[in-house]
């Protein structure tokens, strides 16, 4: 049996207009034209937690394992851990960025049918400060170790190392 007909019967021709090795059900081997949809400028904070959306023609609905800067990204969906899935139309894929040191980072998508690497897809920059975070922390007793209660108590973010 030809490799082109496995599981889906014999296919006529070797190119169906949707990429090589097309089985008639889309292309499970490639992600076509993937790019960072949001954040639009491709910049994410270094403390993680930013939701990133990729756009493109995705091979399958998932699960995808997304690795950014060598760290596995979480799906952001309860119960799915790091297994990321596309939307129904397979045009966007969302995941949550991990904590990373400032700099450009490669994005690696891995799924059952293959993998794809987007070089320097996202740039991590230092986080901004959110005044309400400190206000909320101050509401809780000092015994709770929640980090700085005042902005002045925060370590100044200089340099490019990843902060603990």
């Amino acid at each position, binding site marked *: 049996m030809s490799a082109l007909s496995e599981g889906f019967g014999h296919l006529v021709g070797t190119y169906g207009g949707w990429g090589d090795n097309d089985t008639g059900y889309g292309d499970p081997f490639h992600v076509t034209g993937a790019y960072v949809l949001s954040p639009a400028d491709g*910049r994410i*904070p270094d403390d993680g*937690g930013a939701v990133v959306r990729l756009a493109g023609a995705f091979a399958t609905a998932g699960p995808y394992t997304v690795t950014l800067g060598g760290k596995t990204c979480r799906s952001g969906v309860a119960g799915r851990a790091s297994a990321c899935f596309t939307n129904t139309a397979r045009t966007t894929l969302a995941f949550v960025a991990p*904590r990373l040191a400032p700099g450009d980072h490669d994005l690696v998508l891995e799924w059952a049918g293959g993998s794809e690497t987007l070089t320097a897809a996202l740039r991590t*920059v*230092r*986080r*901004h*400060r*959110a*005044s*309400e*975070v*400190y*206000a*909320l*922390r101050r509401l*809780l007793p000092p015994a*709770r*170790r*929640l*980090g700085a209660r005042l*902005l*002045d108590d*925060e370590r*100044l*973010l*200089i340099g490019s190392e*990843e902060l*603990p």
Partner: protein
Amino acid sequence: MASIGILDGLLKAFGEELTTLHGELSTRLTAPLAAADVVATVESTLDFPDAGVLYLEGERVPYTSRAETSFGGLVRNPLIASAHLAGTEVADGSRSFSQLHRLRGDGLVTRAAGSALDRLGWRHGERRPLAIPDTAYRALLRVLLYLERGLLSSLLRVLDAALLTQSRSGVAGTLLPQPNRLLAALGTFSSQDVGRPLYVGERVYRVREVAADGSSLDLQPGAGVWWCAGNFGDGNDVSYRIPPFRVLELPDTDPGIVLVDLVFSGSSLGPPSYLLGDILPGVPELTPGGWPLGHEILEDELEDGATFLCWYLPGLPDEDLFRTMLEEVVAAGVDVRLNSLLAV
């Protein structure tokens, strides 16, 4: 890498959201800033606007550019500029409208738009009439929600709001000897304009007379409740707007009950003029049992799927009854589709 506790993570997430909603972004200086410096080195400019305003210890500092870790083009006020140490908080002062402000804006007629404007109308029992754009609906709500109801002036404002997009506007000139006369090109005005309100800015006048060649009109300095004497001086820059209707008072009915004479200028809007009495011959009978009279505005070709914008005065029992009354009195063959009922 140190792990983050659940409570810390939740607080951070909530704090970030609250900051987005109504707080202020901030960052910190990573190098001292002298009083004359025009570049501030900071931890991050993430999510700051490309140009805007910063606050440093009470000093307001506009900036014109930003890099990844610096703000450039600082405009320092020599009277208040001072030096700042590294670590000083730098707050974003550019957000004239935070998300919370936008939420508040959605509750204001003047600022709400789209579905927010619909929700505002629903909350006050004033649904958006079909095919009425935001501009007209907003004007309508401003009248319906805030004006005293039942007055002739209120009715005029409602009519004007509902038909705002069909008004005719232009620029006319004036001559000092005849301060109430507006001059324009031949054929600009027509006899259909006589009796119609004419807006100059927020002021409302009434057209008394139109020259036979349509090159001028006289405004009526009457004693009505919604127009006043005009005196535009001598110039060539009077911007006017003429709504597509006249309002005729019925002397033998209660105050606030009017007949509407629609005068459409556009060719697609039907015949040049309709009197409500022509459309509804039984208008006086529309008040059985002392119920107030309803009004209607013709919006489209009467014979081809006519659309009415109707409302009623306070005291009318309910919408269905009004609909029944209206259907009983309209001429046979006329398709009555009540667009909406608006309490005036």
